């Protein structure tokens, strides 16, 4: 399930719902990204999506994750709009029979979401606002998946 929301969400509520009733799955990995205050340098994070297009592009990568790792199910919830420090920005959960698959699929999805997913990010701080381009570290993270074969 892939959801974009402009409202605050609780990652724990999503994890509870995602775990419920799974008697054959065994392994649930999750990742929660929180907006950082950067010691006052960022007061608000603003994320723009292209509704319809953004979900569809994320959906393509979710299908890749299902095919590449032995994943039974996954959930992606992404916040858009203005986000305050400490608020959840993204939540990803993956369910698999074995924990290696669950961890790797979650890691893979996060690398994509943080570096290539169709979002545009603006940081508002005391000195004004600026648009953020992808970080070199994000590109390094995602390129891991081109080289590595699934373990």
């Amino acid at each position, binding site marked *: 399930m892939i959801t974009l929301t402009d409202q605050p969400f609780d990652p724990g509520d999503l994890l509870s719902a995602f775990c419920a009733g799974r008697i054959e799955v065994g392994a649930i990995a999750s990742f929660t990204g929180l907006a950082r205050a950067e010691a006052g340098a960022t007061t608000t994070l603003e994320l723009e999506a292209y509704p*319809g297009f953004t979900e569809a592009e994320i959906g393509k990568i979710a299908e890749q994750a299902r095919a590449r790792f032995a994943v039974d199910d996954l959930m992606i919830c992404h916040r858009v709009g203005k986000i305050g420090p400490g608020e959840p920005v993204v939540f990803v959960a993956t369910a698999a029979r074995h924990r290696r698959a669950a961890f790797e699929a979650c890691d893979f999805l996060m690398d994509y979401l943080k570096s290539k997913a169709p979002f545009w990010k603006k940081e508002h701080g005391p000195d004004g606002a600026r648009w*953020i381009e992808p970080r070199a570290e994000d590109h390094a993270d995602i390129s891991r998946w081109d080289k590595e074969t699934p373990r």
Partner: protein
Amino acid sequence: MARVLLFGRLSDLAGWREREVAEAGSISALRALLAAEDPQLGAALAGPGVQVALDQAIVRGDAAIGPKAEVAFLPPMSGG
């Protein structure tokens, strides 16, 4: 009457986020029309990493624009 959408820094630069454009039959014609009105925006739309989506699918090069098309200009995506 195609819908044109701008995202990220492009809409800040243009001062608009969405508008209707009647006169452009192709993406190249649309680029020319927008550049004539606002040369700075025209340059930004042609800048590195800016992609075009026609009806929510990325297109490379030129393409015809139908009367009910949606054309979006997408600056480099930052991820979430």
